[in-house]
């Protein structure tokens, strides 16, 4: 379980997040949703420690994270897997080497064991015959899948995904969503996904937090997101002809 308690983040005079409290359960796919520029990714980066914030606290399974130094955070960070928006694969490494990278850095394994684990992770994300390809030779969907394979290489307890299906066609986006959901259940991880894709919300969102103008505006499940009566959330949810058809009359 991950808890963010009363998080406030400012960039100069501009308050990006204001007193946000969230709680992400283990074994669930938790979603942070909202329009672009509302602070979703900033919240995610605060949770993983990439941004320092002015007020608040983050707990990983009741372990204090915020006040730790960089080196003290290391042990918790090795339990974190993260999928970045663009994949963030290392350009100079092949797909296989990218997946092996965290193992090389942190695991006490022989080269053969690392290779076996990398191959397992790549096959788990349904990728074959890409081991020797460089990121520049992979499609957008493949990059995301290699990034997921890298994120799960160390068997993380926590998985963070920043807009995992942005820039992908609807079918590939669905595949990525399903993969994240399956992996979460399989490894009993605490998964946090930032997205503004309503399809993802309805497909995989077990617990949903809606951020609006830097504030936590609404939280609930995919079952009740269509019946909130919250004007800002409704404007977000029913923004297309397709979703308007789902709107209860």
């Amino acid at each position, binding site marked *: 379980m991950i808890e963010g308690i009363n998080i406030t983040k400012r960039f100069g005079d501009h308050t990006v997040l204001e007193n946000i409290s969230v709680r992400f359960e283990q074994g669930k796919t938790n979603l942070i949703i909202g329009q672009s520029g509302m602070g979703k990714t900033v919240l995610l*980066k605060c949770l*993983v*420690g*990439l941004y320092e914030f002015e007020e608040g606290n983050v707990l990983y399974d009741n372990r204090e994270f915020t006040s730790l130094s*960089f*080196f003290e*955070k*290391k*042990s*918790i*960070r*090795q339990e*974190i897997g*993260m999928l*970045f*928006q*663009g994949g*963030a*694969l*290392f*350009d100079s490494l092949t797909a296989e080497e990218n997946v092996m990278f*965290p193992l*090389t*850095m*942190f695991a006490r394994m022989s080269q053969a064991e690392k290779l076996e684990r990398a191959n397992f992770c790549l096959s788990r994300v349904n990728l074959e015959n890409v081991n020797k390809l460089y990121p520049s030779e992979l499609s957008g969907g493949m990059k995301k899948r290699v990034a997921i394979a890298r994120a799960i290489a160390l068997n993380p307890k926590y998985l*963070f995904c920043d807009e995992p299906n942005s820039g992908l066609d609807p079918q590939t986006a669905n595949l990525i969503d399903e993969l994240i959901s399956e992996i979460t259940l399989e490894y009993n991880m605490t998964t946090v996904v930032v997205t503004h894709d309503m399809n993802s919300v309805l497909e995989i969102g077990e617990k949903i937090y809606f951020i609006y103008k830097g504030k936590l505006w609404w939280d609930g499940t995919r079952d009740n997101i269509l019946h909130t009566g919250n004007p800002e959330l409704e404007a977000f949810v029913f923004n297309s002809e397709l979703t308007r058809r789902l709107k209860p009359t």
Partner: protein
Amino acid sequence: MKILYHFGRYLMLLKKVFRQPEKMTVYRRQFLVEVEKLGLDSVWIVAIISVFMGAVLTIQMAFNIDSPLVPLYTIGFATRQSMVLEFAPTIISLILCGKVGSRIASEIGTMRVTEQIDALEVMGINSASFLILPKIMAAMFIFPFLIMMSMVLGVIGGWVAGTTTGLITSFGYIYGIQSFFHMYDVWYALTKTVVFAFIITSISAYHGYHTSGGALEVGNASTSGVVYSSIAIIFSNLILTQLLLA
């Protein structure tokens, strides 16, 4: 005030770079990769520039020596001294600053804007140390070899130019380059080179590491890295010369 801000941030980055490194086996591999990228890939450009620089120096020396009281072997002597004391360590370092510095700043800058550095940080890796330390160590190790090669090739270039144009005899030139030789001059040049190597890699890396935005900012970081490294080289050249030769 902005200079102080950047200088402070540069020192903070250096502190992070030299703090508790990650796994040493990974560093060794990275070090060797950087030796190849920063050093061995620069051999050709250094060789070509050095040969022509030595050749031009010799021709200019011969052109300027018009007094019969100055012996012709002075051409060889002056070419050697110019190459060893200034041209090889300083000019070649400035050229390496353009080649290597822009490469470092753009590589690290691209990693920053594509969130690869964030990925390292999330994994719990000290990204500054992991990315920058092997580059600094590799440059400080390989640049002195490049500069020694430059000295030798510059002198050879001068010999080729001097003898083929008939400005000086082969014997006279060789006598000149052997005259009044002090090993300390070479140590002085190599000391400067090691300092310049540190300046080039660390300042370029600083500009790359603190890039934010996109492709345009990566280009700006690359330019700033080269400009500020060059200025720092010129300043430190003056200070080191005063300290080591005065």
